[in-house]
């Protein structure tokens, strides 16, 4: 019997075979490196080279690869595929709450355990794990559909590249921090002779250009650029997504009104980025990798880039399906999936639930200022909360946790920093409020299109 959406086809199995073969070759080289570098461990009363474990792993990969390359004649009964239990676990974990919580926790773990994670062996293990995850997941039809969409392929590549460079930067930063602690010169100062640009730089630029051209041509041949049906103004595809690099912003639209998510917050992001050199008063860490000399700057920037930008893009691209509902990576995109989205405004919660009375409404046909006064009364709680957030918190921050910052930065620079931080924090705060108490708007004045 044939499935309509087969998890495995002969072509997929064959392709995965090549992927495993590539991993086998990579790990074969790693065995050589491990044999030269890693040394022995003592087990069963004798010295065993660490490389032997890698050799074992590489051998398994090789056998898996052969199994794929030869066993593709009966895809339905092919055994190597992602177990359903793991699929269910991942689907369950991709709810927006857990997704955001996990990405934040992951971020904290990376910062906290950086010295452990930056060793080459750890990096290699992480790379292998992510490759294995990807290849195993490819055996699922729905996962394959979403990941191999031509416009999504660069995002998958970006995840690997961002991960690698984050690892690399931490590797260098940890090494420099260690050298500083030991009183040695940092790595960027060692072996730092002047060399001529021709040939040292010009040649590497040339090689880079040739390699990139080849890479782009190969990519262009393998993957065709997407082209859908001709445009029609009346038929909105479901789901409709912005270009992938704006999906972080589109995700914010779930939690904020368009004027905040589409105009104010992006402007704040840009202004904030431009303001960075003028509010960073820390003279250290200029021109080399370090973490300990500027932890606040690095944690803030990385938090903005990794969980709030890259992770949001992943979420918007891979996990948002029809009707902008949430779908796990192995879940079928069902147009009729029902999800309750009954959110309440702060004013409704305050007047109806706490005060047990109807929302204040201006008498019919009253003057505009009477109506305006009633609107202010209706939204008074939200307005007070917002004003307190924007105007009360910065002085409190200056007096408590950011005291030393305030003293070093002066009033204006500190206020800029504090406001940028508050705007950045407003996104996770609003998300948490939405999930915790189904809050829709803190201030809701649809009469004047002003919703917060």
């Amino acid at each position, binding site marked *: 019997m044939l499935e309509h959406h087969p998890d495995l086809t002969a072509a997929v199995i064959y392709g995965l075979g090549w992927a495993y073969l590539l991993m086998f070759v990579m790990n074969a080289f790693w065995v050589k490196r491990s044999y030269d570098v890693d040394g022995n461990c003592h087990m069963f009363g004798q010295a065993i080279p660490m490389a032997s474990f890698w050799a074992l792993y590489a051998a398994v990969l090789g056998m898996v690869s052969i199994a794929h390359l030869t066993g593709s004649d009966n895809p339905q009964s092919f055994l190597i595929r992602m177990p359903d239990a793991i699929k269910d676990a991942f689907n369950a974990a991709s709810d927006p709450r857990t997704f955001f919580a996990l990405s934040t926790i992951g971020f904290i773990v990376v910062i906290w355990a950086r010295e452990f994670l930056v060793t080459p062996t750890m990096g290699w293990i992480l790379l292998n794990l992510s490759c294995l995850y990807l290849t195993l997941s490819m055996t699922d039809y729905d996962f394959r559909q979403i990941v191999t969409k031509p416009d999504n392929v660069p995002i998958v590549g970006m995840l690997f590249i961002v991960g690698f460079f984050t690892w690399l930067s931490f590797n260098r930063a940890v090494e420099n921090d260690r050298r500083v602690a030991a009183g040695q010169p940092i790595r960027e100062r060692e072996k730092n002779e002047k060399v001529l640009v021709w040939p040292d730089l010009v040649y590497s630029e040339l090689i880079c250009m040739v390699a990139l051209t080849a890479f782009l041509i190969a990519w262009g041949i393998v993957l065709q650029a997407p082209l859908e049906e001709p445009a*029609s*103004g*009346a*038929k*909105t*595809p*479901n*789901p*409709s997504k912005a270009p992938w690099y704006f999906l972080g912003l*589109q995700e914010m*639209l*779930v939690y904020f*009104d*368009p004027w905040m998510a589409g105009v104010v917050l992006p402007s704040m992001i840009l202004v904030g980025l431009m303001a960075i050199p003028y509010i960073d008063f820390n003279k250290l860490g200029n021109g080399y990798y370090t973490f300990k000399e500027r932890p606040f700057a690095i944690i803030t920037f990385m938090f903005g880039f990794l969980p709030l930008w890259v992770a949001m893009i992943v979420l918007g691209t891979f996990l948002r399906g*029809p*009707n*902008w*509902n949430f779908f796990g990576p192995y879940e079928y995109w069902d147009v*009729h999936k029902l*999800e*309750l*989205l*009954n*959110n309440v405004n702060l004013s409704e919660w305050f007047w109806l639930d706490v005060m047990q009375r109807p929302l204040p409404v201006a008498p*019919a046909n009253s003057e505009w200022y009477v109506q305006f006064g009633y609107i202010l009364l209706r939204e008074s709680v939200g307005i007070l909360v917002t004003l307190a957030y924007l105007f009360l918190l910065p002085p409190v921050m200056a007096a408590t946790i950011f005291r030393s910052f305030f003293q070093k930065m002066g009033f204006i620079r500190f206020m800029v920093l504090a406001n940028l931080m508050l705007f950045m924090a407003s996104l996770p705060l609003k998300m948490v409020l939405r999930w915790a108490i189904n809050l*829709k*708007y803190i201030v*809701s004045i*649809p*009469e004047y*299109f002003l*919703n917060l």
Partner: protein
Amino acid sequence: MVRAARKVTSGEVPAKAEAAEPVVAPPMPAKPVPSSAKKKAPEPVRRSLGTIITVAVTSLACFVFGGLLSSPLLMGLGVLIWFTLMSPFMAAWASIGAVTGIATLGTARFMFPNVLVEPPSKFKVGPASDYPLNTVSNKWKDLFGIWIVHTDQYEGKNLIYALSAVCTHLGCTPNWLDGEQKFKCPCHGSGFYITGVNFEGPAPRPLERVGLRIAEDGLLEVDKSLKFQEEMGQWTDPASCVDVV
């Protein structure tokens, strides 16, 4: 760097200049000063930026309002203020600023086209009997972006009205789901009842009604240039719907 490299490769040329004794130049004679320059130059008039802006704005305002009210007296006053209180230098700068500003505004205005190739805003959609009770008609959605809704669920009245097929969240086109009896927006999942009132998702307010009336020939006529928003209390407007009796 360059010089050092040259020295290595062309070593046979001796550096003559370096070997020679440094020559001490005789002191320069004092510069003759013309007698007129000895008198102290008058202090240039420097006005603060605030003053300049005040003067410029006041005179421009006089001039513009004079033009609007066609009062030569006021325009003359503007010119007078400009030329008496502005230093020539500042007047020049203010003129440049004004011209730049006007040019920018003009360019911005240039970018707004006056003629648009868009569908007409008034059109006939057939007799009211085409639309049975409690149905949503998708017939005109592709062409004009509206639904014709006939329902008695809004405040218990039996009405026909035209809803604009533009989601109030971000302007996607929602779909009418007959089974679930709701409008559902594919972009961010906003949901609206058959009445057009929002009940789920991020949409901040109900769908908009556009103008609907019974024309002289008895057919329903939609006027998309009129729009009626529920939260502004405009749905009570008789032009926003047609009563079915």
